């Protein structure tokens, strides 16, 4: 019976190799995976790089409250809460480095307005920017596949347009497979979806160096 349970779990879950004690990264990944996507998977990191505007190695250095979006004027903000993660560019692997402003890329992420069931299961917990900020793993390095979404808002109606970044700075997003961070033990963690759910070229990545090399080789071949 225990074996059957384990098999069901193995078939239904997406493993994440986060080092023991790396609690903030674990919290961040858990928060980000509240939102799930149907997306077009790429077979290799090189394929994803070629579809990206910019690919960098960088370090998360901060987070600001970002724009919010509503589907119609006057509608309530309903789960469309965004924050902007600031990523310091350490190395440009592919694409247009001009998307960075003073060496910083501004990465928009969407997170839920409410999560969980509260302490003791007593109700939902508002998950505002401050709560989200507490999970963001400042100082963590990663590889970021970036798209310029400055002129492509989620909805036509934007609240606080330009929030979270300097005037004139580009706003970027990552595709589902394009946000990867390095855990304390050097293992590679895909933020939105586990590497084990991806094609073999992704599953074989064991470190950020593996990923970096895969992209550099593709960009020079």
């Amino acid at each position, binding site marked *: 019976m225990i074996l059957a349970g384990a098999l*069901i779990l193995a*078939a*239904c*879950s*997406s493993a994440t190799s986060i080092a023991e004690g790396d609690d903030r990264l674990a919290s961040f990944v858990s928060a980000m*995976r*509240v*939102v*799930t*996507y*149907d*997306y*077009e*998977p790429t077979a290799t990191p090189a394929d994803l790089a070629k579809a990206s505007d910019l690919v960098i190695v960088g370090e998360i250095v901060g987070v600001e409250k970002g724009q919010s*979006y509503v*589907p119609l004027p006057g509608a309530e903000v*309903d*789960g469309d809460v965004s924050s902007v993660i600031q990523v310091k560019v350490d190395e440009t692997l592919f694409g247009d480095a001009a998307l960075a402003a003073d060496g910083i890329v501004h990465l928009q992420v969407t997170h*839920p*307005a*409410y*999560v*969980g*069931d509260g302490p003791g*299961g007593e109700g*939902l917990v508002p998950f505002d920017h401050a709560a989200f900020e507490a999970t963001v793993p400042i100082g963590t390095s990663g590889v970021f596949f970036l*798209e310029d*979404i400055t002129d*492509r*808002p*989620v*909805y036509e109606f934007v609240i606080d347009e330009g929030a979270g970044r300097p005037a004139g700075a580009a706003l970027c*997003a990552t*595709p*589902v497979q394009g946000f990867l961070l390095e855990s304390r033990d050097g293992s590679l963690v895909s933020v939105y*979806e586990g590497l084990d*759910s991806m094609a073999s070229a992704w599953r074989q990545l064991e470190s950020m160096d593996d990923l970096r090399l895969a992209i550099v080789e593709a960009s020079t071949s």
Partner: protein
Amino acid sequence: MNISLDRDTLMSDLFSATCDPASTDVKWLDANLGGSRGEYICLEPFTPYEPDGICFVARIRLDPDQINIGSNDAEDRKKTACHEVGHSVGLQHGDDKTDCMINGEIPDTSATWRTFNGHHIAAHIDSYYG
């Protein structure tokens, strides 16, 4: 949209003008998802949040521009709708790849890609709603 919830499971689906506390309410919206075809978020979980838990109020957004890339667009739209509804009843991206919980473009127009598989129905949906 025929996602076979009524026929294949113990669930029922309906369009309601009011929220039913015993049901999962799903809001549907069009949006620019920046490269993704569909997006699911549970706004109010039934239980302490678990990725494979069921949801009281969910929001699903579809990006027709992304879904319509490639061929079989009509079936693709149904597949992505089925996929996101699947999340609202506790399903995750699976390894079976014989159902609507696969990611991305469907390989052909078979109804396989617009339905849930037997494991989804028996081990997840009916176990919650049965």
